[in-house]
């Protein structure tokens, strides 16, 4: 007890203890090198956990959620997100992989492993007696050198050449580490097509809001398809309505097909039979009026955010107006955006110019189960696309959705910025070699930290080699040596065991942007962790 409390207690000149922190005995505190060491250990434990998921030969993880649902994935960001991490520093790493996911969408595993490796070499430096801030500064300078070198040696690709061949290859590189790898070519083609459909080539931008990835368990991965339009998980409100509407003029309504419900409180009292009859007639009129309004606007299909009364539903059917009800707000907006429709809150405001246009709206069914979906194709305004993912079961569909998201991101990044660096650990090794070269000219103490950074970069190719069943140190040394002797070579770890190390030949590359982002994010997080020298936490409840 004494040793534990000794840290927190201060004594005045008479030897009486006084309280520095309220209820200090209930708090745990670590400070100084001890704190850094503890933090680094925690962060390294997390990065070790992801280490085996790196690369095409990486393994998957099973994650069992609080409610017992099973997720199988090797996507770094997903693993981190679902892992129920409690440790505060480990949480920083979770956020690290998430921000890589939001920004770039790929390389979420790599960034965490890199951060782990950096922390490991930082620990060695701290043990030598270097001040944490000097270590941070050194890392940052090394990072700047690495980024500059990568930018200088990156290669500009004509991504649209040869029928988008290069984009497809990049998507394949991204997909080959996933469970869907036996269908990687098909999925890559779908991803490329989807992105190109919505891409604004001139501005080099891709609006991801126009790409939706919908999953539906059943069928097999081969049935995954790209739909040039919007898919909503609903069916027609009346089973006998037309299932296909060509040249659709879509009325989008946010008012229910029901008698109006004023928001102010009111009471309508009926005191005689005459009123009763009038009220009934009035009610019937409402429905007829509603349908008339819709019909007069020239629309031939209705999409509504709310429900329908039975009578209204039948009247819609009788007037040959197929309708979809209970469509969610987000989907309504998407449809309105894509078809150029205005969202109409009142029947009386419907008019023909407020309708959206689409070439075809149809209902599709699946398998022996009674599942139906509505597909809106050929929208007037934008080229919204939907990728409909099918797969053996929910787990596969979810994982395939995540994989497709990654692939879409990769393709987008290449369209935005077509400079690339080579994968398989090649870019990291090149950066590492460059830093080592520069470091020899460095007079300050930071050179130690910069060397540490260079060592840490090698860890990526080590991990890749380890996961592919190769001898990590032997492989990395050999690769480094090859590239040192001939700087034009782009050698990386041969993960698939094809006997070729030339990444140019294997077409393994990533966008420069993604790699640079990885280096910078990892360096920043490491700086943040190293700067912590005192941790207070409530100790365990007892």
């Amino acid at each position: 007890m004494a040793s534990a409390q000794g840290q927190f207690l201060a004594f005045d000149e008479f030897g009486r203890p006084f309280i520095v922190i309220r209820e200090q005995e209930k708090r745990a505190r670590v400070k100084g090198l001890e704190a850094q060491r503890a933090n680094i250990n925690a962060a390294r434990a997390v990065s070790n956990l992801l280490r085996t998921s790196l690369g095409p030969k990486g393994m998957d993880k099973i994650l069992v959620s609080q409610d017992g649902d099973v997720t199988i994935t090797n996507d770094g960001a997903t693993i981190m997100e679902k892992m129920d991490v409690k440790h505060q520093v480990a949480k920083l790493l979770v956020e690290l992989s998430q921000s890589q996911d939001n920004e770039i969408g790929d390389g979420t595993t790599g960034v965490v492993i890199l951060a782990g490796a950096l922390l490991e070499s930082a620990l060695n430096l701290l043990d030598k007696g270097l001040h944490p801030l000097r270590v941070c500064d050194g890392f940052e300078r090394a990072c700047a050198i690495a980024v500059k070198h990568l930018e200088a040696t990156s290669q500009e690709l004509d991504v649209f050449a040869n029928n988008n061949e290069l984009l497809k290859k990049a998507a394949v590189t991204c997909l080959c580490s996933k469970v869907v790898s036996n269908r990687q070519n098909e999925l890559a083609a779908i991803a490329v097509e989807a992105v190109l459909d919505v891409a604004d080539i001139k501005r080099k931008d891709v609006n991801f809001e126009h790409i939706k990835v919908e999953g539906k368990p059943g069928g097999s991965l081969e049935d995954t398809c790209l739909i040039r339009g919007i898919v909503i998980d609903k069916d027609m409100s009346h089973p006998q309505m037309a299932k296909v509407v060509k040249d659709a003029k879509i009325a989008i309504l946010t008012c229910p097909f029901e008698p109006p419900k004023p928001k102010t409180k009111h009471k309508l009292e009926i005191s005689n039979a005459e009123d009763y009859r009038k009220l009934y007639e009035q009610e019937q009129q409402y429905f007829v009026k509603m349908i008339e309004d819709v019909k007069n606007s020239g629309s031939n299909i209705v999409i509504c955010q709310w429900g329908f009364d039975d009578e209204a539903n039948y009247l819609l059917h009788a007037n040959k107006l197929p309708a979809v009800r209970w469509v969610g707000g987000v989907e309504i907006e998407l449809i309105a955006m894509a078809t150029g429709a205005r969202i109409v809150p009142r029947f009386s405001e419907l008019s023909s110019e407020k309708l959206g246009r689409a070439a075809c709206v149809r209902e599709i069914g699946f398998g022996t189960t009674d599942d139906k979906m509505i597909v809106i194709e050929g929208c007037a305004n934008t080229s919204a696309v939907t990728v409909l993912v099918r797969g053996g079961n929910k787990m596969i569909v979810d994982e395939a959705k995540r994989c497709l998201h990654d692939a879409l991101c990769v393709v987008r990044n290449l369209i935005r910025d077509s400079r690339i660096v080579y994968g398989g650990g090649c870019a990291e090794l090149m950066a590492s070699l460059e830093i080592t070269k520069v470091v020899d000219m460095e007079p300050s103490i930071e050179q130690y930290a910069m060397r540490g950074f260079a060592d840490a970069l090698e860890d990526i190719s080590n991990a890749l080699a380890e996961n592919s069943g190769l001898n990590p140190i032997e492989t990395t040394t050999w690769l480094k040596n090859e590239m040192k002797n001939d700087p034009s070579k782009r050698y990386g770890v041969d993960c698939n065991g094809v006997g070729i190390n030339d990444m140019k030949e294997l077409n393994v590359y990533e966008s420069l942007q993604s790699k640079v982002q990885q280096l910078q994010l990892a360096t920043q997080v490491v700086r943040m962790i190293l700067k912590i020298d005192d941790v207070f936490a409530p100790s365990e409840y007892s």
Partner: protein
Amino acid sequence: MSGAYQGKLDAAGNVNPQILSEEAEDSRGEMARMSSFVGAIAVADLVKTTLGPKGMDKILKSADPNEQKITVTNDGATILKSLFVDNPAAKILIDISKTQDDEVGDGTTTVAVFAGELLREAEQLILQKIHPQIIIQGWRLAVAEARKTLLSLAWDNNTDDDAFRKDLENVVGTTLSSKLLVQEKEHFISLAVDSVLRLKGSDDLKLIQVIKKAGGNLKDSFLADGFILEKKISNGSVHSIQNPSIMVANSSMDYDKIKIFGSKVKVDSIEKVAEIEAAEREKMRRKVDKILSYGPNVFINRQLIYDYPESLMVEKGVMVIEHADFDGVERLSAVLGADILSTFDNPDPSKLGSCGTIEEIIIGEDKAISFKNCQEGRASTIVLRGASSHLLDEAERSLHDALCVLIQTIKNKKVIFGGGHSEVAMSNATDALAKTIPGKKSLAVEAFGRALRKLPTIIADNGGFDSSELVSELRAAVNNGSKTAGIDMNKGVLGDMRELGIKECLRVKEQALLSASEAAEMILRVDEIVTCAPRKREGY
């Protein structure tokens, strides 16, 4: 150190910081793989004994002590669905079997058992220090080869209707032979084939309705002509009509509440009450008049019909059927070619449906309504009879499997020989492939072949025959070029599958092969299991 920096000591004495929440668990590498193997194999072993014509049944009892209901079944999907498992790998296996059920409807046990056998082989390979990724590579080669062989074994009798019907009968026979219905096999074969052929190529199983009525025996089950609705005709209505015009409606026929929001009836004297009541009746009467102006002589409503409108209609000689639920109404409208009406302002007889006769029939002790000679002749109803409700449930499941298989066969047209022929042929193909592959992958390909051969082995074992002898004989026969050899499970010897008429649907086999290897691969790829702390439940 204390508090947040507490951690566990590992074997080397290093402190592992506590990163996950208190009760979360994390197992890695060998431990994780071991636990998923054990879980998956345990589940596979559980259903193993139900495989094949001599497979045994299982009794499933609910975990809830208040629930006395039990289920007796040998349907893989049903058994697995009702298991409560904690092991994630076992959950995957259950999931894959469920998907097989949704997709093709049969072969659910085969999938689970085959995936289990694959993992058993993988366990051996991993003990020999072969990396899971290499095993997966080998498996992928093997699956492609096996699929190729499987497709080459299949043939179709598409052009010859009689031969195709024979194929269908054989395929159903094979499916049913492992089920409860085996005692009345011939009867159910013709029942299933007839009802499916009546669909005329449609794959909508909803058009075949299965009604279970306890009593009688299985032999009394029959295929009804037309459509049977398990509802009663209102008292006082006529009980049979020839060539009726039928209105199918979904409208409230009770007091028809006022839908305008916030309205309320307030009266100050008894006379006024009477007036309102009269107005209410008047309103209903007008509605009935409107309905009658369409000229129906049968009125079917999804919702309840109150006595007053009912009596009005009955007076006019209309047969009234109330409270046919959503499914009933939708099916009826499809079968009779009627619109489902909710307003009645534009009299138009074309919205009404029709059929040959409509009459009340009695099945067992219950009344039902039968619609005969429907416009849409594709619908049919199978009435199952049997001694107990357990028997009927199991019979329904078996019939469902049989119908699914038939629909798949009609869609795909291709059939293959059963009795283990296809499995052994596939395993011979992968064995041959293994010899041409250099490197460790070939071990995985060989293992795949062994797992394939396990299927006929298990079937033979379940029949109490000498499985090693039979399977090796079969293997030799197939290897020597026999296209029809298989295990005759009645006699326990090799037989000619063509003569015995044991055929299976290609699509089912193919799907089973693919799903099982997909599931096994998924489990094998895992090297870490992170289990979150279970959500704290309150109120218990």
